[in-house]
């Protein structure tokens, strides 16, 4: 269980935004709104990482791919926990996409989006560069309606 501290404000914000979605799906609009209010408070207090550039993400992404996801996958397999294994399977694929996008950006810079726009799958976090909205998410198989264009 998470113990509240100044270090995990961001984690609590994500827990609250997830619970807002969960309540919305259960048709509990009032509860959903209340969780969004609490999320807002923690979002505003999330530690700002002001010195960083996109390049600083690369070692963190690499560490997730080579360590954090591997550990989590091993633990989920050992526990026969298919729900966690599903999250790990999607998450490590999305994280590999982050890595590939950053290395493409390092080479192409502004030209990265010359022939397409960024589309985000709101179900799993997959990011596509595409001239039009993708038909289906290659990672979680969500339909085109789950994609948003990044403006």
């Amino acid at each position: 269980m998470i113990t509240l501290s100044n270090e995990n404000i961001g984690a609590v914000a994500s827990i609250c935004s997830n619970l807002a979605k969960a309540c919305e799906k259960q048709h509990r609009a009032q509860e959903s709104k209340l969780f969004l209010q609490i999320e807002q408070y923690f979002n505003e207090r999330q530690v700002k990482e002001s010195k960083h550039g996109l390049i600083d993400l690369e070692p963190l992404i690499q560490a997730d791919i080579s360590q954090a996801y591997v550990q989590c996958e091993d633990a989920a397999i050992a526990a026969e926990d298919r729900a966690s294994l599903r999250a790990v399977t999607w998450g490590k694929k999305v994280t590999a996409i982050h890595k590939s996008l950053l290395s493409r950006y390092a080479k192409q810079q502004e030209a990265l989006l010359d022939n397409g726009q960024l589309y985000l799958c709101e179900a799993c976090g997959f990011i596509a560069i595409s001239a039009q909205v993708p038909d289906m998410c290659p990672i979680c198989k969500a339909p085109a309606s789950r994609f948003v264009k990044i403006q």
Partner: protein
Amino acid sequence: MHAVRNIKLCTKDCLCLFVCPTGATNTETGQIDADKCLDGCRLCVDACPSHAISLVYDRYPEVKRKTSDVQSALESLLDNKVVQEAIALSVAETSEGTAKKLATALAKSNRILAEDCARESGYLIAQSDAVRQLLASMLDQPYGEDFPADAVSQLLELL
């Protein structure tokens, strides 16, 4: 367990009005009257041609606990994704053009990944001991006047 209508999917064929034995589906708000709805009846759910009605539990059973290995692995992934979200957000604020768009996409994507870790580490649905404990512990923190303590108290009552 009572029926709820997703108004975005409702095509106003109104089959629910004609199959409901208690009139619970016939309301001025477009929502189903939970007090009149019969527990688990589901006649309206099966009749609706647009799949706009579903059943929800009134009281959820406790969520199954994860093993401690899975739990701690998911929590450290959650922390990592939150750090990456924060970095991407700060890049999005201070850059332009392609870098800004890419950073925005990465921030949103990391939030989705963080939420997924939160979901699997015991915070899937709000009706769980883990969530009630987290909310209760927020009220013990010295968060100051702008903390929405009212929202927390209301949730503790509703859940």
